[in-house]
């Protein structure tokens, strides 16, 4: 057996370390991707479940015409809020934004805020006057008259798509999930928006 020189041995060792690092990184990235995919699948399933609940709630109420008056709009909104609260009386934070979902979405948000568009995204949120000091709870109405922070389009492109009944909203550093017609908070993730 031929004896390897110290230089060659060191070179081979270095190659092994580098290869090992790449492999570990790929494994981590694959694991993250897998958990991300699993997280988003779980999110989609829960959102779909909520979508059905919303549609059932609406079906049970007189339909709001596309051209209505303010009295009917206000009454319909309140009736929808009451019905959804009834159907989700035991709803808690984390029912839709589960830990797995939270991890996946937080990763996406962090990537956006670390990426090339970060300053534009930050400016959009800042310009919309993020609001602190408002206690968020599931099944709580988003206060009437409180302005919205614009959800940056760059961020929306990275977040899982939602059906028409549900929308993301930002409130301070919290990401909300809001029933659009009821203007009702259905879940939230605190401290995720930098």
């Amino acid at each position, binding site marked *: 057996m031929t004896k390897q020189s110290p230089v060659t041995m060191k070179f081979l060792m270095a190659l092994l370390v580098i290869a090992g690092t790449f492999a570990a990184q790929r494994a981590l990235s694959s694991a993250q991707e897998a958990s991300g995919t699993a997280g988003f699948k779980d999110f989609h399933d829960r959102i779909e479940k909520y979508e059905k609940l919303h549609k059932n709630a609406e079906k049970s109420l007189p339909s*709001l*015409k*596309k*051209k*209505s*008056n*303010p*009295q009917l*709009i*206000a009454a319909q*909104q309140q009736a929808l809020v009451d019905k959804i609260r009834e159907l989700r009386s035991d709803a808690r934070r984390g029912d839709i934004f589960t830990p797995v979902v939270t991890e996946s979405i937080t990763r996406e948000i962090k990537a956006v805020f670390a990426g090339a*568009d970060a300053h*534009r*995204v930050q*400016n*959009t949120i800042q*310009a*919309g006057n993020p609001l602190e000091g408002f206690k968020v709870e599931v099944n709580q109405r988003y206060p*009437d*008259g409180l*302005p*919205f*922070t*614009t*959800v*940056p*389009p*760059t961020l*929306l*492109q990275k977040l899982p*798509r*939602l059906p028409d009944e549900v*929308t*993301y909203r930002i409130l301070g550093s919290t990401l909300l999930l809001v029933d*659009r*017609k009821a*203007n009702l908070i259905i879940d939230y993730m605190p401290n995720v928006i930098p």
Partner: protein
Amino acid sequence: MHHFVVRLLAVVTFLSSLSAIPAGSQVKAPAKPDSVRMAVIGDMGTGTMPQYEVSQRMMEYRATFPYDFVIMLGDNIYGGSTPKDFERKFSVPYKSLLDAGVKFYASLGNHDNPNEIFFAPYNMNGSSYYTFKKGNVCFFALNSNYMDPKQLEWLENELKNAGDGDWKVCYFHHPLYSSGKTHGSSTDLRKVLEPLFIKYHVDVVFSGHDHVYERVKPQNGIYYFTEGASGELRAGDLKQTAMTAKGFDTDNTFMLVEFAGSQMNFQTIARAGQTVDSGVIDRQVRSSLNSFALLGGTLARKHTAKGLVQVEIHQLGS
């Protein structure tokens, strides 16, 4: 009902005491037969006297420039959306216009209840983004609070289907280009919208949000207006920037716009009644320049060769 009548009477009495349109300030647009005529208001829904006064001016000018509809650039109702809010901040201030058959087409601002899309006089028909056509002008009302991939896909499809023969006018709340100190340009929104506007030859964009008036120099061949002072006002909020063609931030304003063939006449009028900006945009010439620019790139935009194309903004008075 009694309360509504009393309030209405008080407002009418007050507005009757306002002076008529100042001498020397007149409608600049030609009011050609079969033209498309509209007014533009933004950030108007305060329910305070300035909003009522702007509305009164709108009605006065309508006597000589009979426009058929108004586009609303968002923040239509501030501070709540009870039936009383709709009454005080929309139905009463614009009663004269509504009674005259003027139609309103709203877009949503960051202060608007999303369910305003169901309010009949806003003509949103249950959608926060929609399109409609008047004569040779295609309008695209967008929801800039929430520019998600679905809305972008819809917009691209609609812009593509509209072809290139007619005017394309987009309006939404958050300005892509603005010299307002409080908000300024919505650069993240610009990143996703501007490429579509350029690709599909959008001609004019109206926005609000900054409570000033500003006409921006054409950006990639597209004209941008901020009209966010039709009820709200942030006096002194305009910064000096190189992109401003004309700015005004010391009084409330509204705009009158006429599309006649390939020309768009615009006039911005202050609450006190004077004209603060006006001009003409010639679409046919702008299209030619863009086509030429496509062939020659940046060089073509910098050169307006005599005899080939001529692009001017005519300042008819201020």
